């Protein structure tokens, strides 16, 4: 069964995303800061990582993503962002930002599941 790691410091986002993915039959592990996030990825080798862009500091998410890639952890990364539109920043998939997909907050079940299914197969629903 596909394992998804969610790393976000907002417990409400963490619980809501977990519930959505669990309902769709995915197995979910979570962490609420970059250090724990790094640990659960190293230990559990998830199939997809969902990562919030800002945790303790702006850019925490980016730094963690870069750290994974430097260590050749090539697991697909979906980045949660709530800032792209407010800051007028244009995120592009590319070398600068080593992530595979973006999901704009607030999350909706359809959108989140659709993005995850780009990387893993739909498990048999519970």
């Amino acid at each position, binding site marked *: 069964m596909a394992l998804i790691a969610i790393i976000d410091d907002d417990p*409400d986002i963490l619980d*809501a*995303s977990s519930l959505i993915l669990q309902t769709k039959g995915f197995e979910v592990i979570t962490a609420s800061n970059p250090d724990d996030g790094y640990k659960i990825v190293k230990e559990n080798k998830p199939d997809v990582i969902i990562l919030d862009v800002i945790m303790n500091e702006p850019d925490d998410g980016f730094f963690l993503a870069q750290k994974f890639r430097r260590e050749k952890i090539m697991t697909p990364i979906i980045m949660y962002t*709530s800032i792209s539109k*407010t*800051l007028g920043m244009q995120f592009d998939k590319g070398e600068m930002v080593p992530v595979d997909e973006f999901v704009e*907050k*607030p999350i*909706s079940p359809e959108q989140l599941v659709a993005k995850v299914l780009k990387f893993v197969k739909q498990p048999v629903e519970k």
Partner: protein
Amino acid sequence: MVSYSKAKILVIDDEDALRGAVKRILEREGFSVVTAENGARGISLGTTDEFDLALIDLKMPDYSGLDVLREIRKHKPNTVCFIATAYASYETAVEATKMGADGYILKPFTPEELLNHLNSGFKKRVLILEAEALKNEREARLLEIAFERTRLNTVIKSLADGVLVVNTDGEVVYYNNAALKYLNLQDIVIGRPILEELPREIQDLIFANFTSEITEKKSFSVEVEIKPKHELVVEATLSPVLRQSGKLSGVVIVIKNISEFKKVEHLKSQFVSMVAHELKAPVAATLGFINIILNKEMNLSREQEVDFLSRSRVRLGSLLNMVNDLLDISRIEMKTVMREIKKLDMNQIISDTLGMFTADIKKKDLTVIFEPKENMPEVRADHGEISRLVTNLVSNAIKYNKQSGRVEITCCQQKNYAVLEISDTGIGLRKEEQEKLWGEFYRAKNEFTKDITGTGLGMPIVKRIVDAYSGKIEVESKYTEGTRFKVYLPYNLTDDELNN
């Protein structure tokens, strides 16, 4: 024009008869005549009075005519002098002329000869005076221009803004030191080409001015970052200088240092994006919950729904708090707060504040120590603002305290200040956390704080209120042991000081 209707003449001769005859002849011709009977008298008159002409006898018992001539020329160089002598010798004539004699009259002379000499002498005198007047006038004008130029120069040199004038050949015509500084140039030399040393943006603007037909005087501005990271940002305003013919003769560039302004602008936009992000987080969480609740496929149980709804309510409540805090901040910052300055009883405010937190104090089993001091002078301030200040500090002392901890509050008078001290036995602040404490939305994040809610605006509000009353606030803290805040509020502020 200098015009003399009547020539004034000094006649110096020791021969009484001759003196009298000359005086009669000349007065008949309209001259004004003064006579001197010897050299000493002649020198005395000729060096003090202004005469057009002087007729000096060469041979006198006391002084030689040449001595008299020398003295008069020394003091009155514009008096036209004639030497009169009975025996002329070439040498004497030459010497007299060297000394500045304008003519030589041989005795005996006829009245016509005398008049001829003196009339031409008078014409010369008039010319001398006219030339003198012109010279004086010109010197005065030159002085005036020089003064004007110095003054203008001083004014431009002492301008805070940079000034650089460039002609159509791209050469420097004028500059001041501020221009040197704001363009970050080592040297500017008048008469040398400068365009290539100027920042690209200013060059472009100058070229645009040189190449386009300018029909009206219009200025253009451009912002240039001279040193990165807002260290030196200037605004260059370029105005064409037109000749009277309407042709362009050059441009004047005024360079203004706008670094501070840009820094503030940058801070402001940083603040706005920070606010936007902080506001969006609770909205995003709440909307996320609602999306799940409304999604039929999610099939939530009633308990899950209630859980998500009550969590949404908490997030929306904190959002509302944040918006209220932001409104407070902007009210204080805009200085449009209608402050109701009254004499405040600090003891009362502290007691009232503690009353509001009774439930929280009980829940955490905290010991609160506050003994009101007698005879506290009253602080003049706005009740709402000072209550807010005390509330924020007390609330933090409770929120970040440990179970069964202590909160100690004292308020006393120290010189011109009312000093409010609030200390707790809470989680404390690390050194780096203390430095960030006054920043908007800063919340210390560690294992103790993760379950404590807050807007990150409480301390910035406290700081702003303290500043508004020209007070000060100090913080002492030890991580894991506790924090002590000391607020100094000045007494005796005048109404003017309070309204600023």
